[in-house]
C-alpha cells in the first residue's frame, strides 16, 4: 500500500469527519487566535459527537473552546488556550478548573519544534526554552514522558532539553485555496501549520476555494504543502467564520463577543449557544446565514479589502 495518494479527495465535511476523525484521536488544529480557525470542521466534529479527543496546536482558540464546551475533549496539549483581546477560552478554563479535562502545557516554540520533529520523521528535538520554568515541573497524569534533559555531547557542561515529536492522528485546518487532490496554498501568516500538516498521520483541509491543479503546476514556488500530506479537501466558503481568513474576510467581533458572553456564562446559556448555532444548523452555510448571512459577509469582506 502506498502512503501517498494523488486521487481526487474532495468530499463534504460530514464525510471527511466520518472517515478520518475517531473517538480518542489526537487532533491537530490549525489557525491562531482570530485567524483561520477551522471552525466549520470543528462544528462537524461536534455534530458527530466524536469523543475523548486530545487537541494539540499552538494557540488553541474558539474552535478548541467549542469542542471542549461540547464535552468531547479529554486533554489539550498546546502552547496556549485563549483568544487574546477577546479574553479567555472560558470552556477550556472552566474544564481545567473543574478537573474535567487535562492540560499539558508547553510553549509555542516547543510545540512547533515537536511538529517539526514529526514532519522530519525524527523521534525528538532539542529546544532552548522551558528550562528553569515550572512547565517542566508539572505534567498531565496521562502524559508518559514530557521531556528529557541530557548533557550536550558537543558542549561540555551544558544541558540540553529534548522534547518528543508530535504526530497528530488527524489535523484540521482551514486555508485559502486547495485543489481537488489536496495541494494547499496558505496566504499570509502560516503560523505552525506547514509543520503541523506534514507531521500528521492524516489531514482534513477546508478551503475558501478549490482551484485547479494547473495553478499549482504553474506557480510551484508558492505551494505551501503538496498533496502528499492531505487526505480530504472540503470546500467551505467562510469556513473559518467567525474568525478571519486573510484575503477573504475579517473576523466578526460581534459574534465572537456573543460567543464569549455565552461561554463565560456557561451552563444553560452555553448549551443554548451550541443548540442554536451548532446542533441547530444542518450545514455550516446555515450557521453563516443565521449569523447575518450575505449582509454580514459583505461587511467582513469589505473590512478585509481595506486591510490589503
Amino acid at each position: 500500500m502506498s502512503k501517498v495518494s494523488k486521487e481526487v479527495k474532495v468530499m463534504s465535511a460530514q464525510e471527511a469527519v466520518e472517515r478520518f476523525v475517531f473517538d480518542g484521536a489526537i487532533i491537530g488544529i490549525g489557525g491562531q487566535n482570530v485567524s483561520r480557525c477551522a471552525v466549520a470542521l470543528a462544528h462537524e466534529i461536534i455534530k458527530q459527537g466524536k469523543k475523548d479527543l486530545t487537541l494539540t496546536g499552538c494557540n488553541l482558540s474558539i474552535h478548541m473552546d467549542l469542542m471542549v464546551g461540547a464535552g468531547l475533549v479529554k486533554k489539550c496539549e498546546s502552547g496556549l488556550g485563549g483568544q487574546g483581546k477577546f479574553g479567555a477560552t472560558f470552556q477550556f478554563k472552566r474544564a481545567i478548573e473543574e478537573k474535567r479535562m487535562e492540560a499539558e502545557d508547553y510553549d509555542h516554540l516547543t510545540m512547533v519544534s515537536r511538529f517539526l520533529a514529526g514532519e522530519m520523521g525524527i523521534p525528538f528535538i532539542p529546544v532552548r526554552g522551558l528550562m528553569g520554568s515550572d512547565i517542566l515541573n508539572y505534567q498531565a497524569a496521562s502524559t508518559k514522558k514530557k521531556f528529557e534533559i541530557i548533557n550536550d555531547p558537543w558542549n561540555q557542561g551544558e544541558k540540553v532539553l529534548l522534547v518528543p515529536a508530535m504526530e497528530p492522528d488527524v489535523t484540521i485546518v482551514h486555508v485559502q485555496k486547495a485543489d481537488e487532490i489536496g495541494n494547499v496554498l496558505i496566504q499570509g501568516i502560516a503560523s505552525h501549520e506547514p509543520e503541523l500538516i506534514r507531521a500528521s498521520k492524516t489531514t482534513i483541509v477546508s478551503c475558501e476555494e478549490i482551484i485547479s491543479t494547473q495553478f499549482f503546476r504553474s506557480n510551484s514556488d508558492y505551494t505551501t504543502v503538496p498533496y502528499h500530506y492531505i487526505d480530504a479537501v472540503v470546500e467551505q466558503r467562510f469556513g473559518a467564520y467567525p474568525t478571519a481568513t486573510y484575503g477573504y474576510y475579517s473576523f466578526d467581533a460581534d459574534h465572537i463577543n456573543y460567543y464569549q458572553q455565552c461561554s463565560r456564562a456557561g451552563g444553560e446559556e452555553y448549551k443554548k449557544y451550541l443548540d442554536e448555532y451548532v446542533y441547530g444548523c444542518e450545514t455550516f452555510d446555515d450557521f453563516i446565514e443565521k449569523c447575518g448571512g450575505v449582509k454580514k459577509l459583505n461587511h467582513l469582506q469589505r473590512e478585509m479589502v481595506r486591510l490589503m
Partner: protein
Amino acid sequence: MEKQYSDNYTREELMAIEASRFIKSTDTVILGTGLPMVAAIFAQKTHARGINFVVESGSIDPILPSVPFTVADPIIGYRAIKTGSLREVLGCLVQRGLVDIGFLGGAEIDQFGNINSTCIGDPQNPKVRFPGSGGANCIASCVPKILIITQHEKRRFPAKVQFITSPGYIDGPDGRKKAGLKVTKPEIIVVTDLCVMDIDASTGRLKVTKLMPGITVDQVYQNTRFRPAVSEHMGVVEPPTEDEVRILREEVDPKRVYLKDCPKTPR
C-alpha cells in the same frame, strides 16, 4: 529648543512611552498585543524609526499603520517583508538569538522577574487557569532584553510567583545558568504605573530605578509583596511632551484599542 511637556496624559500612556524609551532604532523587537504594541509602534514613529518588528504568528517586519487587535489580526502581516511561519519567528529568529527585545506580560511577576501566565493555586489542581505560555517562555528564555509593562498591584507582585511560566532570574543571580539557559543575564525592565524596576544582575532581583511623577518609594512598597531594592540614584520618569501624546493618540492607537483611559480623539 525646550521640550513642551504635556500635563494631559494618563498613567497608561506614560507607561507605554517610558517603555518605548528602552528601544533603539537598530533593534529587532518581538511583539505581543496590548500596551507593548503601543510602546513599540510609538517608538517606531518617534525615536526608533529603523526598528523592525516580528510577531510570533509569522509576520516579519510589517508596517503597522496603527495597533493591531491581536497577534493574529490579519493586519499583522500588513506590508511585511515576509509573512512566514511561527517556526521562522520563534525558531529561526528568537531561539537563533537574533531578536534584541521581547515584550512580556502576565498575571504575576516576582522579585526575580519570573512571570506567571499559567495558573493560580496548585498547578495540578488550579484554582484559576490563565491562557498559558504562548510564545512567552521562549522569548523569556532566549532574548537578552525583556520589557514588561503592567499595573502595579499587590497581587501582581508576589515574592514568588505560583507558577514560573517564563523564567526571570528564577531564584537568584545564577538561577538561569543553573537551569541551563544560554542567556544567563538578560536585562529585565518592568514599567508600572508607579515605577520602573530592573534586575540587578548581582542579586538577580528587581530594583527600583525610577519613580513615576508624584509617586513615592513608600507607595511602591505598599503595592508590592516583596521589598525591592532601590537605586542610590533614583530618577523620575520623564513626562511625555505634547507632541508625544498627540502621536500616541492620533497615530498609534486612534481607535483606543489599548489606551482605554484616555479621551477619544475628537474627529
